[in-house]
């Protein structure tokens, strides 16, 4: 655990890297992250931002990736920490930004500096801030999917579980192969949609086998993939970002549910 650098008001200034998917698709995850960070004593700001460049990076377009990375580095350079509600996007900055500037010592140093202060949300709360519990209630069983980048690039596995264990009324039922890919893989899900579908099929069966009515994970891409599959199959599993539950902000309908449908589900 690293000591918090003192800022002017003694509180760490955190730049929220909201990630494009959360920005566009599910802003409530971003606000849940803000609440969790503020509750933990941080000053949170969300500077104007676009994307970390991961789609370009994984498509082999290093030039565009570098351009976007430079923009990210400048956008977030003034913060004590940068936190993202995504292991994949935080991993992009932590693990891959330094690789992008291997031949450019000036930018390499800046990329390293950003990498060192960038964290996935639950990992930041637990590993950096030392948070051990949250003030939240969620009734029922949930199962948790470990998204690949968070798990393998950043070691995110115990942190969300630890925080979930403090949520009142919640029990965690582990699924088989929780650490196996859901088949999302960014553009993979569109480029190789048949293969992706077969992989998410296996994931959906593992989710169902737990009989937990709620599925949580820490990455919106995976969540949309799994939610889309479960809803296509007519499975009534509510799918949410783990931050929503931890922040006690589950008023938005679950991913892929309409407002009235969510109302009906909550009543039944």
């Amino acid at each position, binding site marked *: 655990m690293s000591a918090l650098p003192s800022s002017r008001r003694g509180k760490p200034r955190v730049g929220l890297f909201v990630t494009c998917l959360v920005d566009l698709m*599910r802003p409530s995850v971003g606000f849940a992250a803000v609440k969790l960070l503020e509750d933990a004593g941080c000053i949170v700001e969300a500077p104007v931002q676009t994307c970390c460049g991961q789609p370009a990076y994984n498509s082999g377009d290093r030039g565009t990736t570098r351009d976007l990375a430079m923009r990210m580095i400048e956008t977030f350079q003034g913060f004590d920490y940068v936190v993202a509600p995504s292991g994949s996007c935080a991993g992009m900055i932590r693990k891959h930004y330094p690789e992008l500037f291997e031949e450019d010592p000036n930018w390499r140093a800046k990329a390293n500096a950003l990498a060192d202060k960038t964290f996935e949300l639950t990992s930041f709360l637990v590993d950096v801030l030392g948070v051990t519990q949250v003030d939240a209630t969620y009734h029922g069983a949930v199962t948790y999917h470990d998204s690949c980048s968070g798990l393998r690039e950043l070691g995110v596995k115990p942190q969300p579980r630890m925080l979930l264990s403090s949520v009142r009324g919640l029990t965690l039922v582990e699924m088989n192969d929780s650490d196996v890919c859901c088949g999302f893989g960014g553009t993979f899900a569109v480029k190789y949609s048949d293969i992706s579908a077969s992989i998410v099929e296996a994931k959906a069966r593992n989710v169902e086998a737990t009989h937990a009515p709620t599925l949580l994970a820490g990455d919106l891409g995976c969540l949309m993939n799994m939610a889309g599959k479960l809803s296509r199959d007519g499975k009534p599993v509510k799918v949410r970002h783990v931050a929503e539950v931890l922040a006690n902000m589950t008023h938005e309908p679950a991913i892929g549910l309409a407002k009235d449908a969510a109302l009906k589900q909550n009543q039944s």
Partner: protein
Amino acid sequence: MTVHTTSPQFKQNAARALHDPQLQKALNNVKQGFIDKRQAAADKLPEFEALRDSARDIKNHTLEHLDLYLEAYEEKVKASGGHVHFARNADEAREIILNICRDAGAKTVTKGKSMISEEIGINHYLEANGIRPVETDLGEYIIQLRNELPSHIIAPAVHLNATQVEQDFRRVHTHLDAKRDLSEPVQLLTEARAVLRERFLAADVGITGANFLVAETGTSIIVTNEGNGDLTQILPKTHIVLASIEKLVPTLEDASQLLRVLARSATGQEMSVYTTFSTGPRRSGDADGPENYHVVMIDNGRSSMLGTSFEEMLRCIRCGACMNHCPVYHAVGGHAYGWVYPGPMGAVLTPSLIGVDKAGHLPNASTFCGRCESVCPVRIPLPKLMRHWREREFERHLTPASVRSGLRLWGFFAKRPALYRFATRAAMATLGFAGRQRGRFSWLPLAKGWTKHRDFPAPEGETFQARWQRERNRRAA
């Protein structure tokens, strides 16, 4: 040489595999068997992770000094009475092998399992020249009967079930009683053992691969569970070792480090049943063993991988752990990859060997989940190397036009935050409005690949950045 590959048809291959219920059942065996066994073996050895580091370092050190270790190895093989041949490519390798077989007056050649022999397509070449090659590894024997490529580098017939093997045996072993019972796998094994025993004893030449070559002693090492590699090399008069140049390690100690991670990563065994260290031909007075010992050192593209980012791929010890842990391999099996090497290691190696123009799909067909890298005994960063291939494809404009134009459009907006916010705000408001009734879309333009198999959750409507700005303004006011 013309390479026979269906890698360019990866998508069609994959679609066929996904709709093959028998194959899907067989692939379940991979998912269930190998993963737990590897984990158990790793858990039992506290030094396992340190051994992986050691294995990586040994391979890196050897590759950095490959020319010198190759010289030392060659000298030792000669000193022990063996011959070393060098082949720049598959054509040369096949020619050398054929000549050795001809000199030995060979009619039948037995073969131990060897991926490099698949790579150079030696079986068809020998057959075309009147020499009968007989694969002796049970899995390889089965796929040879079916005229297929292996679908897995350590379990070549993993895509088949016992009934299919029974049918092949009945079709080919016509000298046996047609009414014999072959309903149990053990009966199939017993039959193959008896048939192949005859072949072993009759063979004129035995061809094996090499898991490692030891520079210190001029030794070739093979690892098997069946013992077929040993019968292949000790019974015939001539033993030919086929090895690509990156199989070298400096010493017996180094080989022992690598052997400690090989079987554990591959099958979860502490050690394979037979690990055989062969040095030269039989010695004077020896009761058995081959009279002639040849090593064919094959480059076939390796030397030009050195010094590039793909040099790391030359650490590969062919354990198969990457494919055993790969969700894409689990979904489509090995044949979809269209050539000799499937799974993540194939996705990196195949473009190097047959060209990224042919094998371009392979490094793209990955979710980058990273599980392969997390189990690789020599810590090859497989996703990173697949990404390097994607970069080369992008540079060479091999990336599909639709992807390029999509990326260009997206990049245009992402580099212009104000425009991005304006455009996304409008787009999400539209999508959110359109999806407000059901909360999801079962069809969307430009996202057919997605919506063919799953719904597309509707956005909430307002973007985070729009709402954030609105709320901050209110807070400030």
